[in-house]
C-alpha cells in the first residue's frame, strides 16, 4: 500500500461504518420516516467520506473534482427523493410512530 | 474456477430463477419480471464467456447491447398490454391455455 492509500484508509473505513449504520437503521427502525432518516446518513456522510478517501487515493485534482460533483448530485437526488417519499406517505395517511415500542 | 465461468454459472442460475417466475405466475407483470430476469441471465452467460480472453471479446458485448434494447422494447410492449388487459378484464392475467 502506498502512502496515499494509508491516508485514505481512515476515510474509507469511516464511510463503511456510516453505510453499515444506515443499513442497520433501514432494517431496524420502526417506521418509514425514521428509516429515511437512516438512509440519509449513508448518502450524505458515508458517500461523502468515501469521496474524500477516493479523491486522496486518486492523487489527481481532476478526478477529485469529478468525485465531489458526483457526491453533490447524489445529495440533490437523495434529498429530493426522500422528500417525495415522505410527502407521498403523509398523503396516503401514513403516520409516524410515536413513543417507544 | 475462473471469474468468467463463475459468472456464466451465475447467469445460468439467474435464468432458472426467471424461468420459474414465468412458469409459476399468471399475472402478466410478474411474468414480465420473470422474463427480464431470464434475459439478464442469458446476457450474463454470453458476456461472462467473452471474458475468457484478455481483453474481452467485444462481439458478445455488442450482441448483448442489441439484446438489451430488444428486451426493453418487448418489456414496454408487454407492460402496455398488461395495462390494457387490466382495463378490459379487470385483471392483468394471462389467460389459461384453453384446451376445450
Amino acid at each position: 500500500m502506498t502512502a496515499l492509500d494509508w491516508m485514505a484508509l481512515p476515510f474509507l473505513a469511516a464511510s463503511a461504518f456510516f453505510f453499515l449504520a444506515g443499513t442497520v437503521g433501514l432494517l431496524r427502525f420502526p417506521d418509514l420516516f425514521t428509516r429515511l432518516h437512516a438512509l440519509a446518513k449513508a448518502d450524505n456522510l458515508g458517500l461523502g467520506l468515501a469521496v474524500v478517501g477516493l479523491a486522496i487515493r486518486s492523487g489527481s485534482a481532476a478526478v477529485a473534482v469529478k468525485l465531489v460533483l458526483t457526491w453533490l448530485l447524489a445529495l440533490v437526488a437523495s434529498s429530493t427523493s426522500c422528500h417525495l417519499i415522505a410527502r407521498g406517505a403523509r398523503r396516503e395517511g401514513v403516520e409516524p410512530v410515536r413513543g417507544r415500542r | 474456477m475462473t471469474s468468467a465461468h463463475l459468472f456464466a454459472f451465475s447467469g445460468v442460475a439467474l435464468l432458472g430463477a426467471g424461468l420459474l417466475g414465468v412458469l409459476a405466475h399468471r399475472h402478466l407483470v410478474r411474468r414480465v419480471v420473470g422474463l427480464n430476469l431470464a434475459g439478464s441471465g442469458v446476457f450474463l452467460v454470453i458476456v461472462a464467456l467473452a471474458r475468457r480472453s484478455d481483453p474481452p471479446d467485444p462481439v458478445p458485448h455488442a450482441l448483448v447491447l442489441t439484446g438489451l434494447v430488444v428486451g426493453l422494447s418487448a418489456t414496454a410492449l408487454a407492460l402496455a398490454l398488461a395495462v390494457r388487459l387490466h382495463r378490459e378484464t379487470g385483471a392483468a392475467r394471462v389467460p389459461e391455455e384453453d384446451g376445450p
Partner: protein
Amino acid sequence: MSGAAWAIGAVLVPLAGATAALVGGARAGRWVGLATAGASAACAGGLASAVLAGGTVRHRVGGWGAPLGIELRADGLSALMLVMVAAVGIAVTVSAAAYFGGAGGGEEQGRRRLLFWPLWLFLWAALDALFLAADVFNVYVTLELVGLSAVGLVALAGDRAALGAAARYLVLALLGSLAYLLGVGLLYAGLGTLDAGGIRAALGPGLLATAAGALVLGGLALKAALFPLHGWLPPAHAGAPAPVSAALSALVVKAAFYLLVRFTREILPGAALPRAEVLLGALGAAGIVWGSLQALRQDRLKGVVAYSTVAQLGYLFLFFPLARDAGAATALSGAGLFALAHALAKAALFLASGAILKALPSDRLDGLAGLGSRMPLTAAAVAVASVSILALPPSGGFAGKWLLLSTAFATGRWGWAVPMLLGGVLAAGYSFRVLERAIASTPGDAPPVRAPLAMELSALALALAAFAVGLVPWAPLRLLGAGGALAGVAP
C-alpha cells in the same frame, strides 16, 4: 440490377415505406402502403428471377464478410418464401386499403388507420429480412421484429380475446427468443462464429451441439404454434382485423417453420438430433388431428379458418421426420409447395371473411346461407380457397400434400401418412360445413351494405393463385431447386 441489389431492396423498401407511413400519418398511410407493396413485390420478383438465372445470391453487408460481418443469402427456398410474402402482401395491402379506408369511424378507427400501415410494412420488412438472413444472431433480431410487429397488429383489434391471446403469445415468443439467443450464445462461445455456414462447418457432435441445438430448436418450436402450445393462435388470428389475420395466418406462422428447416437440415446437422425431428413430426401429427377437430366445432367462419391453420401447420411439421436421409428432396418440394399454397388459400379465406364482415352483421356460419347469390365474388373465393385447403386435385394444396404423401410411401415411413389422410377427411368435414352454406342455392337478398370491391377481388385473386399453384407446380419447384435449395439437399 444484380441479385444482391434486389435482396437489399426487399428489406430496405418496406422499411422505408414503414417509416414514411409513420411520419405521413393516417391520411398518407394507404397510398404509402400501396406504393411500397408494389415496389417490395418487384424486389422479390427481381430476386426470384436472379436466383432462377444464376443460383444462390449472396451479399456481404458492410463488405466485411463472415465471420466478422453479416451476410445475406437467397437460395431457392428463401426466394420462394419472399415471393410468397410478396403475393400475399399485395393482396393484403389492397384489401387493407379498402378495409381501413374511408373517413370517420371515430378516434379508435383513426388510431387503427394511423398504426396499421407502419406495423404492417415493418412486418413485411421483417419477414423479408428473416428469409434472407444467413447470420444466426441477425435471425434473432428479425425474429423479434416479426414477433413485436405481429403482437402490435393483434393488439390493434382491441378485442378482449385477441388481447389475451396476444399477451400469451408474447410471453411464449419471448421465452422462445431467449432460448434461441442462449443457444446462439453457446454456439458462438464454442465456435467463434455466428455465420450459418461457419457453424455448419465447425460443429461436431458433443455436449455443446446437443445443448445449443436443443435450445435453438426448442425456442423456435415455442414460437411456431406447435401443438400443444398452439392455444394462443386461434383467438389471436380469429380476433384480429381481417387483413391482419390474413398476414399472420398466411405468413408469420411460416417464419419459425422456415428457420426450423434451416437449422435441422442445414446449420445443425452436426448436432445429430434425429429424435428432435421425430418429435417435431409427432407434434405436427397431433396438431393436424386436434386443429381439425376444433375447426369442426367452430360456429364462426374466422374461427374455422384459424383452427384450420393449426391443422395445416401440422402437415408442414411432418417434413422433419420425412426429410431424414433419402426423403429430403421430395419432402422439401412437398413442404415448399404446401407452404405456398396454404399461404395463398388461408389469406384468401381471411380476406373473404373480412369482406363478409363488412357487408353482413357477422361471420357466423348460420348467417352465411345464400352467400353465393348475395356476394358471388366472395363466395367464389371461399369455394376455390377451400378446394386448396381440402387438397383436392388439381389445387396447390393437393400438389404439396401429394409430394409429402409420396415421400412417406417411397421411404417406407407409412405411419406418417395416417395423420395426413385422417386430416384430409376431417378437413372435408369442416370445409363442407362452410361450403354448403356459401354456395348452396338458397336465395338471399343482396346485403344492404356492399363490401368494397377491392376486398372481394383480392380474396378471389389469392384463391385462384392457390389453385393455380397446382396447375403449374413446376414453376415454384424450379425456383425452389435453384441454387441448391438447401445445402446438402438436391431436389
